[in-house]
């Protein structure tokens, strides 16, 4: 009758040693099995009975090599499904080449959660306020999914389908997040607004990645978190800037467009109006940081 946080429901725990073992288990049990990486999102959801209770937890942490993070100038950044949020935040490649990703990873949750939770898990949970998502959207990342029907690559922009919903099939797992190499001279930023100074959820998150040459905006990608059912890009705002001379007026116009293109909700964390207003403020700050010296 009462539905407070409870103890974990009774579950069968499975610890595969290889990817094949994990995938064939998923194939056999489909929705009755749930993948378990860091568990920082799944465990509270299970305790709260907010998700269907699976029969099996398939712990990926017994499989070697899934926590790799690699980078080269051609292939870009590859993030394995068990790479923790801390690993991203402390990875020299990420710090050097993807500042927006670094800022997103270091702003997430608490040090304990960052040490335990995985970056891929944050994507797969598909919470609209996930900090990792706007940065990945602005960087035009893609995810490699592996399942019964084989492997497929999905652009991150097509991965999220709704709050806590993705294109992942019951028997699929995310194998890798791929982020293209940064364009020469590009800059990036992730700005997060939360009530407190740390360990808090984003009311609004704005990522921008772009290049400005001789005062002209060569390219710009703007992505927003926590202001729509999924993290979103704002193409109209981007189109305002692309190929144009960067002026305060045009940044203003693009920021207004970003604010008008989102569809935030009113809830106990913030009102719709405040969220929309803050998209404008944060977009303006982000664009100034990326496009103006």
């Amino acid at each position: 009758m009462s539905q407070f946080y409870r103890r974990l429901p009774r579950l069968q725990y499975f610890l595969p040693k290889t990817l094949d073992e994990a995938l064939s288990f998923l194939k056999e049990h489909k929705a009755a099995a749930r993948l378990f990486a860091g568990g920082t999102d799944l465990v509270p959801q299970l305790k709260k009975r907010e998700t269907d209770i699976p029969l099996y937890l398939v712990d990926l942490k017994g499989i070697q090599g899934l926590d790799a993070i690699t980078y080269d100038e051609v292939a870009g950044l590859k993030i394995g499904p068990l790479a923790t949020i801390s690993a991203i935040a402390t990875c020299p490649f990420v710090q050097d080449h993807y500042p927006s990703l670094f800022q997103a990873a270091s702003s997430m949750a608490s040090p304990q959660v960052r040490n335990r939770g995985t970056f891929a898990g944050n994507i797969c949970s598909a919470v609209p306020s996930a900090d990792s998502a706007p940065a990945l959207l602005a960087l035009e990342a893609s995810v490699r999914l592996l399942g019964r029907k084989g492997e497929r690559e999905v652009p991150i922009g097509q991965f999220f389908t709704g709050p806590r919903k993705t294109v992942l099939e019951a028997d699929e797992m995310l194998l890798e997040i791929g982020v293209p190499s940064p364009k020469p001279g590009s800059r990036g930023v992730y700005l997060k607004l939360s009530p407190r100074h740390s360990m808090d959820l984003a009311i609004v998150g704005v990522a921008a990645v772009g290049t400005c040459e001789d005062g002209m905006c060569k390219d710009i990608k703007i992505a927003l978190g926590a202001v729509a059912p999924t993290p979103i890009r704002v193409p109209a705002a981007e189109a305002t800037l692309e190929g144009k001379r960067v002026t305060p007026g045009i940044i203003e116009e693009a920021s207004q467009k970003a604010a008008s293109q989102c569809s935030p909700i009113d809830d106990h964390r913030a009102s719709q109006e405040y969220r929309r207003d803050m998209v404008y403020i944060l977009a303006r700050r982000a664009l100034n940081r990326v496009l103006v010296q």
Partner: protein
Amino acid sequence: MKEYTVIGQRVPRIDGREKVMGQAKYAADYSLPGMLFCKVARLPVAHARILNIDTSKAERLPGVKAVVTAKDFNGWTWGFMANTRDEPPLAMDKVRYYMEAVAGVAAIDEDIAEEACDLIKVDYEELPAVFDPEEAIQEGAPVVHDYRPNNVSVEYHWNFGDVEKAFAESHLVREDRFRTSRATKGYLEPPASLAWYDPAGSITVWAAKQSPYFHYRHLAACFGLPLSKIRVIQPFIGGGFGGTKNDSVAGDFCAVLLSRMTGKPVKFIYTQEEELTVSKRRHSMIVYNKMGMSKDGLITAIQSRVIADGGGYTAVSPLTMYLTGCCTPLPYRLPNYKYDCYRAFTNNPICAAMRGHGVTHTRFACEIQMEMMAEELGIDPVEIRMRNAIDNPKPGEIYRTINDMTLKTCGIKEAIQTLVRDPLWAQKDEAPKQDGSVSYGVGMSATSYLGGARQLGHQSCAATVRICEDGTVNLITGATDCGQGSDTVLAMIAAEELGVRYQDIDFKMVDSAYTPVDPGSYGSRVTVLAGQAVQTAAADAKKQLLDILGREWKVNPGEIEIKNAEVYHKSNPSRRIPFDKLAKIACYSGSGAVIIGKGYSGYGIEPLGFENGRGNAGTSFSFTAQTTRAGVDMETGHVTISDFVIAHDCGRPLNPIGAESQNEGGAVQGMGQAIYEDFIMDRGKTLNPTFLDYKMPRSTDVPNIKVIDIITDDPDGPFGAKEASEGSHVSAPPSVVAAIHDATGIWFKEQPVTAEKIVKGLKEKGKWPR
């Protein structure tokens, strides 16, 4: 000035080592063989008539040993006053707030107990409900309790002097509406207890109670047992802050009854979410405040009309509403005062006491309103305070407020002047006012809080000091340290008075079978009143020891002194023995010689004038002045508090580390209330019952805090002490809000002043960029 050897030393906490090593045991850590687990079943509706409760499915679940509902308590109800005993252990005919308890289950493990709760079927008829306190007291509103058809649970109408005449003669009169937030305590340890109903007819509980003797009386009354059969053993307590841990909760009564039914020990632990959904929280109050001032800024009159959201039951609120009114004549002279309060029953969770009890609401309103008026009159925030502040009475003299509260010491003027000299205030105009989108401001407040609170009934604290033959000492009191550090302070007082070392004192925690009855840890009373009892008991033990040694040495006992565990003849200091030797001589001095000092606080049981608001709500009053520096992002509304300076008159800090940390903790909790904390409600349901969404300050939000002691040595306190902690809890919100005003030019009258409210305020003033 007297030289102290223990008092004033920065000693480590007496329980520090155990707590830091993880060895301290809390209620939830206790277990007994054969123990069952209790879970409480609750109804997720705010107001409903209960038609039937069917527990048969739950009872048939394997592993379930017993289920109780309201009928098993035979109609017993409890409450603070004889005419407010309106709260049953489990809902009887109605539920009056969301998730009120309707049944208790005992099972062999927690999972089964939870599952059994799901199997309890309640047939109910949902009733029209009321959630807004101002609507609740209007005619025609849904009635929460039949015995209060107007939904007014408590009301007082006090009148001192002639406010109407004073307003008419005032140069400036202002009226404003203020509102305080629905705050909660936020302790880490939720309610828990292990209960054992001995088949021979006595109850033993290991319960998380900051005032174990409330619970002791509740259990005796509920189960019809004499007090001699009730044993409340107090484990370490993981935070209190008033309210829930003073009182008993549904789980307490269910666990005892389930133990009686099953013959097994029964334990319950609320989850933090359960605690945040159903436990007693601070009242949110609407304060309609009217203040009059003369041309030169002297306050001529205050009229406060307060409407408090009380939730579903009365609890301790007759005291809440008393405290909300009685302290308004402090810390400024007030010649005319009128107070009308209405505490409304609503279908929200119950509201009760919390740190800064009552005073925080009206002091916030008065402090802000006074500054608004000073601004209109062109008087500076320091000047307005100094012109109105109460002077420190000369030794032997008493300052009497218009409602007959009496002060023997008052350090408010010295506190304000100290802050004026401190760099945060003195150099505020040299510090940058603007950096990018961030505006900076500095604000001040000056407040007061009572120490040694009293309420109805038994008020006295008692202590015994037992001398062991090796010179060590058992200190036995009825006082509870719920985290504030009182065990440490009481041990220091015993050591100082007796003349031994701090580490010679062993402190025994409450066990109602052996320790003396005590009112409890609320209203900043432990150091002040239990401290007085300990001091007296130690003096008594010392007298017994010196009498024996006087006979032995053939000198007048008055010529012998004990200091630092050394005993010596005052005029011939070379004649000396160590304290352990004296202890041995005394304990072995005759057949059956036992040295036990006894003492109790001198504070009696004079009734408070609940109806007319006259009298002392405490033995003494602390005074606090506080400055705050805040940065406000004028685009996002985000507030960063960088500095607090707190000048605090606690009479004399006995353990300076403890007094500092209490001031810091109180101020940070007050800051949470000022800018972050609020329960967001939707028709009686708490939407943010987690610490993710109920936003208390994190360590990264906490400013640099400087605490400056103002020493006034109150004659009624042990070694001059008054209260510390509730004072800075009260001073923080107005000081923070004044700093936000200094940064933004806007006075915010509703707590918490969130970023969103700031942006809204800036938009209204045309100061926001979009």
